[in-house]
């Protein structure tokens, strides 16, 4: 009974359960011999979704309608600019990193400016912004691939004690966000805003300031992801962020964060990110065609959500 209530009180359990199940099923195919390889690959690639997911989660916590669709183009622009600035020189590494962060800052500020000053709903404001950011990336470098500095390329592809460095970075960022949401004043604020912006305002919370910070955070996480992704895959590409539009949203909500706002959870992002990678690997491993693979992915997502849901006491 207590175990059962633990299950239902922790929605992220389900994303982990799903990830575990897919992991086991995938390994069954090879009789377990793919243990190390699969786990490492999963951790590596899930890291990127975790990093963007963390930012997206902060935004989604702000309440209904808050979402950042400029994540993919921010990833692209940050990767492009950082790699071109560094031009393969390890000595320019910090410059590249800060350039990426500056891009995050700029995109976040512009996003919130559109939302606040022009009162455009976030979903449309960030979509419009993403077009502009994408154009900037095209204009800046026209899609030419510049190789990352050797140090950086090595760092992103290597592992420490068998755990990919990228996963360690994602872990550090996750702990930071967990602290932010659970322990810090700022986290209290955005959770309050997510439940009722007006009540938050009347409780003396600097609502606009907090929302601005959140959008900036999200864009910065995206730009860090862009920086790492470009370094990892040997150069920035104009379409390198595309994947992360749906992915960033999916990992947040499959991870058990309420889309109605005010309630977020960091562990769920890990479960969901691992799951999203593993489900594709599993279906690829078993050799399903694209159509069947898509259908199964969708059905599995819905099943996880159904399992994690509790029936409403009374139809709302």
């Amino acid at each position, binding site marked *: 009974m207590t175990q059962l209530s633990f299950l239902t009180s922790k929605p992220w359990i389900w994303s982990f359960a799903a990830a575990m199940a897919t992991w086991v099923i995938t*390994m069954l195919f090879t009789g377990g011999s793919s243990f190390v390889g699969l786990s490492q690959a999963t951790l590596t690639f899930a890291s990127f979704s975790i990093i963007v997911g963390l930012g997206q989660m902060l935004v989604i916590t702000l309440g209904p309608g808050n979402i950042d669709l400029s994540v993919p183009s921010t990833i692209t622009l940050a990767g492009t600019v950082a790699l071109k600035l560094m031009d393969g020189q390890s000595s320019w590494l910090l410059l590249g990193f800060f350039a990426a962060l500056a891009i995050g800052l700029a995109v976040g500020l512009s996003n919130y400016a559109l939302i606040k000053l022009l009162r455009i709903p976030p979903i449309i404001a960030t979509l419009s912004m993403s077009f502009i950011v994408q154009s900037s990336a095209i204009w800046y470098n026209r899609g030419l691939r510049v190789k990352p500095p050797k140090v950086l390329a090595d760092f992103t592809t290597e592992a420490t004690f068998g755990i990919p460095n990228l996963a360690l970075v994602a872990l550090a960022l996750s702990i930071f966000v967990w602290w932010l949401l659970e322990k810090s004043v700022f986290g209290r604020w955005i959770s309050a805003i997510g439940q009722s912006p007006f009540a938050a305002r009347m409780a003396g919370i600097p609502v606009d300031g907090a929302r601005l910070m959140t959008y900036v955070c999200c864009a910065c996480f995206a730009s860090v992801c862009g920086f790492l992704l470009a370094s990892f895959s040997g150069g920035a590409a104009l379409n390198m962020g595309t994947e992360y539009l749906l992915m960033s949203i999916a990992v947040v909500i499959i991870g058990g964060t309420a889309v109605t706002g005010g309630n977020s959870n960091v562990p769920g992002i890990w479960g969901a990110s691992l799951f999203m990678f593993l489900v594709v690997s599993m279906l690829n491993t078993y050799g399903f065609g694209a159509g069947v693979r898509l259908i199964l992915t969708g059905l599995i997502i819905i099943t996880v959500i159904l399992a994690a849901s509790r029936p409403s006491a009374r139809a709302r």
Partner: protein
Amino acid sequence: DTSSKKIALSNNYAGNSWRQAMLTSWDKVASEAVKSGVVAAGDAFTTAENQATEQAAQIQNMILQGYDAIVVNAASPTALNGAVKEACDAGITVVSFDGIVTEPCAWRIAVDFKEMGRSQVEYLSGRFPDGGNLLEVRGLAGVFVDDEISAGIHAGVEQFPQFKIVGSVHGDWAQDVAQRAVAGVLPSLPEVVGVVTQGGDGYGAAQAFAAANRPTPVIVMGNREDELQWWKEQKDANGYETMSVSIAPGVSTLAFWVAQQVLDGQDVPKDLTVPFLSISQDTLEESLKSTQKGGVANVEYALEDAKAVISGAK
């Protein structure tokens, strides 16, 4: 005389280096032609998202803008037929290339994508007469080019039955997606001798093999500079051998000249083919030298080349 004629390029996607190279080549050749008075305009248009519906609207707008010829790289071979038909009905010459359209009134500069796929297996059969396992990296599901190349590869495997495709993943023609997809199946694959690809994803596959600490198989490359560079490094280090094949982005300039020729009243057959651009072990250094850093191996066409292609097709 086509000096008063206006030509437009309708492009559906600009989000990768191949398309960027295509646009650059177009811009170079078209602005040259405008300057020298061959045509009055050679404008390029790109849609925001890779969508047939948006491109259809774009073509309809071009009709309204009074272009005499529209050169199309189509998002879908069939979904633009409505708009293309309207253009033809309005007396506009439509030339499609790379992503061709099936509407009969349009000209098609096709690449034999099937052959591109088959030739990869053929090359591998030379390298591995005893055959072996292959990994296939595909493009974007539901898109014509993906289907064609894949069909070619499977035809190749039928022709050389010593090969077996043990895994097939969709890399969406993007380096990082390919890398992720390959990394995901790799742990569960038996030994692989070759990777057959569609272009733009070879480097990602190579990275994935390296990350999994598996011996690098023969990966067919797709003419990107970083792929060629990697190939050269491997070649210098351990004598790695492979091939690289893709369609040259400069084919847009061929389409430009074909459109100009049609406008000029020349008799041009509706179906033209361009050879794909393939790079072998011997031509690697040379191609690498002429390829822009971070770009794609390219050939641009002049009017004479176009005339040669046209007369070759008659």
